[in-house]
């Protein structure tokens, strides 16, 4: 019983992390029609920033670190968007290729700066003691992480559905040209959304650090999971990213625990199913 509950919680916390990664990916895709292959690298960069900060300054608050790393990664993303991606507005394939090139550059730079060994990230000391609920023992940090992902989901929901900025983003997603015609600064929105997506990924990387630790190849491990999540949930849909993240979180965690060698194949199955019967994804709109 304890096994199932612990694995269930692990699934939820992985799902939460995947949401932090894939929500940004999905937002960027929805607005910019851009498959941002740098997203895994942004996440990894966040993890490395977090690892360095938290190991150098004991007692540094992980939330502050996540915020700082998120801003740093968002700034980097913004620069990349302004300097490179805007030049390729009419060339969507070129955009994907430069995000791929950027992913190579970042991951190789991380390897050069931090070396090939994995760097563990300390769990915040006030969250190290396990929590007991109904006689079951839970690692507190993972519980907090799930809460954090849910909070992020709610915040994003309000941002998109309830604010002026969100209304402009939705208008841009629905019809970019009409949005421009009525005076919405779509190019600025692109930068904002790209920064936002990169920032969430960077912050998520810090928060994922204590579970995953920072290692070369983390980007390559996370990016396909994010891709599968958004293919499953529907590209551009926040709700789809949320549901997809937890589905993949469960499948991957239980797959790894029960059939370690086949976990990757098991990951395939929901994706194939969805693509076969609902190519636009669970919550995606047809024609997206």
């Amino acid at each position: 019983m304890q096994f199932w509950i612990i694995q269930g919680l692990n699934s939820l916390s992985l799902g939460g992390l995947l949401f932090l990664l894939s929500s940004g990916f999905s937002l960027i895709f929805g607005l910019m029609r851009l498959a941002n292959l740098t997203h895994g690298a942004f996440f990894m960069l966040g993890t490395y920033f977090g690892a360095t900060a938290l190991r150098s300054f004991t007692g540094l608050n992980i939330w502050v670190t996540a915020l700082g790393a998120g801003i740093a990664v968002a700034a980097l993303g913004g620069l990349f968007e302004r300097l490179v991606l805007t030049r390729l507005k009419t060339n969507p394939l070129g955009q994907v290729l430069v995000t791929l090139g950027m992913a190579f550059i970042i991951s190789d730079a991380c390897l050069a700066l931090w070396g090939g060994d994995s760097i563990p990230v300390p769990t915040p000391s006030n969250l190290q003691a396990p929590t007991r609920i109904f006689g079951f023992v839970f690692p507190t940090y993972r519980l907090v992480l799930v809460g954090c992902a849910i909070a992020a989901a709610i915040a994003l929901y309000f941002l998109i559905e309830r604010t002026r900025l969100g209304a402009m983003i939705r208008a841009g997603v629905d019809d970019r040209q009409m949005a421009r015609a009525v005076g919405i600064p779509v190019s600025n929105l692109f930068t904002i959304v790209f920064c936002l997506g990169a920032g969430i990924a960077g912050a998520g990387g810090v928060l994922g650090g204590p579970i995953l630790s920072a290692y070369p190849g983390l980007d390559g491990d996370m990016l396909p999971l994010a891709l599968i999540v958004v293919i499953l949930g529907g590209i551009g849909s926040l709700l789809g990213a949320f549901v997809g993240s937890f589905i993949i979180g469960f499948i991957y965690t239980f797959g790894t625990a029960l059939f370690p060698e086949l976990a990757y194949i098991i990951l395939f199955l929901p994706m194939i199913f969805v693509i076969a019967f609902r190519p636009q994804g669970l919550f995606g709109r047809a024609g997206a």
Partner: protein
Amino acid sequence: MTRIALAVLAVSLAILPFFAGDFYINLASQALIAAIFALSLNLLVGYGGMTSLGHASFLGVAAYISALMTTRYGMGHGLAAIVSIAGTTLMAAFFGLIALRATGLGFLMITLALSQVLWGLAYRMSDVTNGDNGITGLTRPMPFGVPLDNPASFYWFALIVAVFAFAMMAIFVSSSFGSTLKGVRDQPRRMAALGFNPWMIRWITFVYAGFWGGVSGLLYVYYHKYIHPTSLSTTSSAEALLGVIAGGSGTLGGPVVGATLVLLLKNYASAYVERWNMLLGLVFLFIVLVMPTGITPGLRKLVTSMRGGSR
């Protein structure tokens, strides 16, 4: 003019081992393998408008099957090659069913996800694939009793296969089927209205490209006598895609030139710098920003403008 140039090229390729050293012969063999691989990817990218970021799946899986069949199951090279190519083509047929549910960026993401899953499998299923250590101790085949262990004989073997592959792919794209493929790339709806089945045309091309990707994988594993999960990685797919785009996608000669350039760059650069992936990323940025149509079309434009100037 072009005929003379082609004849000179063919002769110099054929007699290369007589005047080049072993290092250059080996480099040329690798270039031939990379060229077949890039040409097969170009069928998708250039002629089909399907940009795949998972083409290394076919190279890697063919190589792994051949390696496993010859070492673990003690199969002969001939049979192992047939099993390997058949298996890879079947996989392409299956992957095509999945990936071609989408087009454009969706297609790209699905091919990337599929190939990453295979890469993960090669790493994690270590009792089959030997994980990060890769599979060592492989041998080269002896077609018709000719050993391929010295560089020159392997080069000629690769050259024969490459010329055949080039011809087969050239016939494919210049056939009437190739024309419908280009039609589907440019105007899928009109082609559908004319009674063609765009999906089927794309799928057949995908399988055909997977087949030639498998052939290049077989040569790859014969050449290196070693296979490692990196052959399945995104880097490997991206190198080929860079070759195709740098050379000029949708041309026959472009991918050959591009793949050779990427290979040379990789070989020379790795002698001086440790960071190949970073260089690859920078070259990607450079090519996309500066020469989006590729080197071959760019050069051709240059040549025509020079001819126009001399007239």
